[in-house]
């Protein structure tokens, strides 16, 4: 015997999904919209969604600018999984590796209060590092694989 009402109410919310895009700034915008649509049923706070959007935007912009060097036809795949300790995101691309094979995080990137010393760039990894956890970059069979966790949607 089936209980149609119950089946509908118990249908689980998707806790993982993917987004594909090519390396173009407008595609990044659309991919972020798609990701936020996928996350909407999880009822995260606006502040959390804002952090997810920002970190993913920075990671994707880095790939467009640095891995694909401005080429607009490079493939980028994003996959996310929600687990007990947050949202795990993995992003892969076929572009050039990171310089020296590692994430260019600068520990001494403290903005100066003298305007002339304030950098105009390099904020991206600073934001990713400030909001994400377990950030791992690896080169795997000619692809860049970046994964990280955002401590959002926690009970």
């Amino acid at each position, binding site marked *: 015997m089936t209980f149609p009402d119950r089946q509908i109410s118990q249908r689980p919310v998707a806790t993982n999904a993917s987004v594909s895009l090519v390396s173009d700034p407008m595609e990044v915008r659309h991919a972020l919209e798609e990701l936020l649509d996928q996350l909407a049923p999880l009822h995260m706070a606006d502040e959390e969604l804002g952090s997810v959007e920002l970190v993913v935007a920075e990671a994707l912009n880095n790939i467009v600018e640095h891995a694909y060097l401005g080429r607009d036809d490079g493939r980028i795949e994003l996959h996310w999984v929600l687990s007990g300790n947050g949202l795990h995101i993995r992003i892969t691309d076929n572009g050039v590796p990171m310089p020296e094979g590692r994430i260019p995080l600068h520990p001494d990137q403290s903005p100066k*209060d003298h305007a002339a010393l304030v950098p105009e760039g390099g904020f991206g990894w600073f934001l990713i590092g400030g909001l994400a956890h377990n950030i791992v970059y690896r080169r795997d069979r000619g692809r860049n694989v970046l994964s990280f966790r955002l401590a959002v949607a926690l009970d």
Partner: protein
Amino acid sequence: MNLTSERIGDCLIIRVGEPRIDAAVAIRFKDRMRDLTADAATRTVLDLSEVDFIDSSGLGAIVASMKQMPDGVSLDLSGLMPNVEKVFRLTRMDTVFTIHQSAESALQDRAC
């Protein structure tokens, strides 16, 4: 890139009529700011109250806009929405800019 400017007394208010300043528009934003501030008064306020998302490229463009201001002209900010405020706070750029709650309060803070 929808940027509009209004001169109120000695003060130039530039309002950003876009929901995002991101990598897709950062260069256009910076160029437009250069045009609008070329003959700026002593104080210029960039009102971001309609912007709900900026990324590091957008932040870089705002910082570049501040650096390219004519001599003796400061660039203040107003109306930072939560996601925008977060980017300024995390990068500590909130210590580099004077940030007002709104364009109106910026005008009241100092007569101009």
